[in-house]
């Protein structure tokens, strides 16, 4: 099918804007899923500093020697960019959860007629939750 014949511009051009709710939901879910698994790997990597900490290693944080784990985490947390990324992560996770719930409903055959509405609802809710949690996430970040 699509692999076997290239219609050049015509096959690909402007296809995006022809997507409908369910297809966007699918794209976003994919994207957020990949972000999450990617984060999980990073997360474990960062947390691995606990191994060093348990060995009693220390690193320098704001001129003090703290244990490697606390230092790594707090050091990262003090960066503005990390806070922004965290808000992003929250948005990603919230959307994935909400849309995941939507998908679970779809799998159970509940509310199929409202599938587009529930997608829009997940989007809006994600936005609201993300915005609402910005203060908490930005708390005490050193600029």
């Amino acid at each position, binding site marked *: *099918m*699509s692999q076997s014949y290239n219609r050049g511009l*015509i096959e690909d051009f*402007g296809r995006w804007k022809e997507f409908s*709710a*369910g*297809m966007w939901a699918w794209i976003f879910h994919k994207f957020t899923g990949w972000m999450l698994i990617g984060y999980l790997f990073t997360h474990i990597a960062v947390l691995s500093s606990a191994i060093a900490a348990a060995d009693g290693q220390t690193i320098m944080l704001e001129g003090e020697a703290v244990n490697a784990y606390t230092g790594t985490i707090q050091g990262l947390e003090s960066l503005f960019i990390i806070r922004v990324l965290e808000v992003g992560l929250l948005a990603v996770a919230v959307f994935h959860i909400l849309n995941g719930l939507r998908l679970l409903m779809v*799998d159970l*055959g509940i509310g199929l007629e409202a599938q587009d509405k529930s997608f829009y609802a997940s989007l809006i809710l994600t936005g609201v939750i993300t915005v609402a949690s910005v203060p908490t996430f930005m708390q005490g970040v050193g600029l």
Partner: protein
Amino acid sequence: MSTQQQEPDTDAETEPEEPESQEVPADQEMSGLASPQQQRLQRKHDGMAEREREAAEDDLEGDSVHIKVFRYDPEVEGKQEPRFDDFHVPFERGMTVLDAVIYARDEFDSSLTFRHSCRQAICGSDAFFVNGRQRLGCKTQISELDQPVRIEPLPHQEVVKDLVVDMDHFYDQMHAVEPYFQDEDTPDSADLEEQRQSPENREKIKMSSRCIWCGACMSSCNIAAGDNEYLGPAAINKAYKFAMDDRESEEIKEHRLRIVEQEHGVWRCQTQFSCTEVCPKDIPLTEHIQELKREAVKKNLKFW
């Protein structure tokens, strides 16, 4: 069209059908080696421009619809590179997309090619990609669309020519679900004895039995586009029709579930819903697919 002594209806606006330069390689007409086809087109162009001027004078009569139609022919020089042709078709109340392309073919360019037959949304021949969506040409009122109306062959299928796509793969998928009653154990028809079926059960399969094999759903599905072996919504729906019909025995139903729960069966569906949205027969395809997933899981659970 160019050379015959056509007697155009005096009020029919005829306009050049020559492609707009936009999508066409600019040098196409410049090339010294114009094929007979191109020469004809050129002559036609001239003739039509003239008529257009005439028409413009008494042009008060009705509006015309601007359609842009995908053109491609592997054999004809000048059509090997896909392009869009423009046609201006006089609008009439009730005009459908199919009417518009028929008019364009009969009046402007007889080589414009597309499948069509019943004109009433039952033969499933004329699913096109119209303004970015899979639609049945004969069932789409042109007045409801933004102009210019862009008409393309179904995406994700090989184009044979113009709006005609290769349907073989679609048919293969339809056939792959063993779409036929297999119960050998039916009463003797000579005794006029029927298999009983409750009205409720008939109602259950009603929507699934409406499929006209137009292929719109399959074409709209991203997953089917990426995975050629995916059975696709239409074939799964076909399987649903049989699996849910109480007239067949339990063993056959299980056999049917085994077919659809294969790797390239129902699990491929990512509930994108585009199939359900484009289906001209309003079949709740996603719902049927989801129900089969649950049935398959239930069946598998039994053996754990």
